[in-house]
């Protein structure tokens, strides 16, 4: 679905429930960035999977790929400013031909270096060597596993995906990922397989840890719970399954003012495949570039204008402040 159509649907949330109005009501308007701690780089929308919940609407048919000049500019900025986390996402980042070079260069900066990998791509040529690239450069891997049950997980991500992810996790465990004191971190992302919000992260992490070890012999570091935001393919699913109204209602009624203070856009800058800048990856998919006087392309990067920029908000933002809060690093309120 086109971004404009998604925004039109989100605009229909009425009854005094606009997110901007809610932020004004709790006296947090305008939402303003506190700095740039995370540079999240979306390397493109090409992916070997076509997950039903994907907000990027990524897949094998996508052609958007970040080119080397944009990546070189990212490195230049990372050299110049003490941004503590480099967060590489996609699509499947491995399918960008510049990833190996970029990881090698970024690893020299000694920052927290994250790659969000679906892991299944590591079983396909010519991407098999990335497991060595990740290990050698001590890349923190974040992977999606919506449920610890194969059937449920596969309903969202495709048949056979769960089995491949488990096989890759085994291989990563063998290399030291998820093991104490190895310095190699593998984190798992849980998101609901359907039209409901995630439960408490602590409880779900316990459940995943017990079950994955008992049933699959898998170890991992952290579990991040993510709320599905009503955009992209997930929005289409909500509409097609007649869950849109109930889900939006659940998001609005779960609004947690405490989560507003920790929302990820306050410390993140998101870079799109063509160098466009966004407050988060969700805004990126809706085409909502940074605004309010901040430069909207990385080639015009200006730290002074970006680190205190006013955040661009819309009704999908309810997803990040519902319940325990949600971000690319999981729950935000420690509940």
């Amino acid at each position: 679905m086109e971004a404009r159509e998604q925004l039109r649907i989100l605009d229909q949330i009425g009854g005094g429930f606009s997110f901007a109005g809610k932020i004004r009501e709790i006296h947090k308007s305008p939402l303003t960035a506190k700095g740039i701690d995370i540079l999240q780089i979306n390397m493109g929308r090409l992916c070997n999977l076509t997950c039903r919940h994907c907000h990027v609407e990524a897949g094998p048919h996508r052609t958007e790929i970040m080119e080397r000049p944009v990546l070189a500019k990212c490195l230049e900025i990372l050299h110049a400013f003490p941004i503590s986390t480099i967060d590489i996402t996609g699509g499947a980042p491995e399918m960008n031909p510049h990833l190996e070079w970029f990881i090698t260069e970024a690893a020299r900066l000694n920052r927290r270096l994250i790659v969000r990998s679906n892991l299944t791509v590591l079983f396909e040529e010519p991407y098999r060597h990335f497991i060595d690239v990740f290990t050698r450069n001590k890349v923190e891997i974040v992977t999606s596993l919506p449920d610890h049950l194969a059937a449920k997980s596969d309903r969202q991500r495709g048949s056979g995906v769960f089995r491949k992810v488990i096989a890759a996790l085994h291989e990563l465990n063998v290399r030291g990922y998820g093991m104490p004191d190895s310095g190699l971190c593998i984190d798992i992302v849980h998101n609901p397989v359907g039209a409901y919000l995630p439960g408490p992260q602590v409880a779900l992490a316990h459940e995943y840890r017990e079950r994955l070890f008992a049933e699959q012999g898998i170890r991992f570091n952290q579990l991040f719970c993510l709320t599905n935001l009503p955009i992209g393919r997930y929005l289409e699913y909500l509409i097609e399954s007649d869950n849109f109204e109930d889900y939006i209602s659940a998001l609005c009624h779960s609004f947690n003012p405490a989560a507003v203070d920790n929302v990820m856009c306050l410390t993140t800058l998101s870079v799109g495949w063509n160098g466009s800048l966004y407050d988060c990856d969700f805004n990126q998919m809706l085409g909502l570039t940074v605004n309010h006087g901040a430069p909207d392309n990385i080639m015009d990067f200006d730290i002074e204008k970006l680190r205190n920029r006013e955040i661009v908000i819309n009704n999908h933002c309810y997803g990040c402040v519902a319940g325990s809060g949600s971000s690319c690093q999981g729950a935000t309120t420690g509940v």
Partner: protein
Amino acid sequence: MNYYEPKDLADFPNIAEWAADQGNKFFDYYGAATGAGKLTEREKSLIALTVAMTQNCPYCIDAYTTKCMSLGISSEEMMEAAHVGAAMMAGVTLAHTTQMRKIIKKKEM
């Protein structure tokens, strides 16, 4: 207006209206009783779901089915819990036949 409208579930936080003192005490008790303690939130949610089904409360069934899903409880686990409730309801019914049988045996020649 219909009885049992799904959107009325959102009215649950307002049930202290017109009797705030008692209502708020109920919410304190409700929170303490259903939150994690010696039993986990997971275990308590399955108990709550089962009670909701045995007592035919559509609001509670909606709320606790969703909560169980959020907590990662599988459909199979919820269905097993439902059978515990069903078995208990059947057992409770049949256990009361003792009273019926006693009366019959006393009164019949």
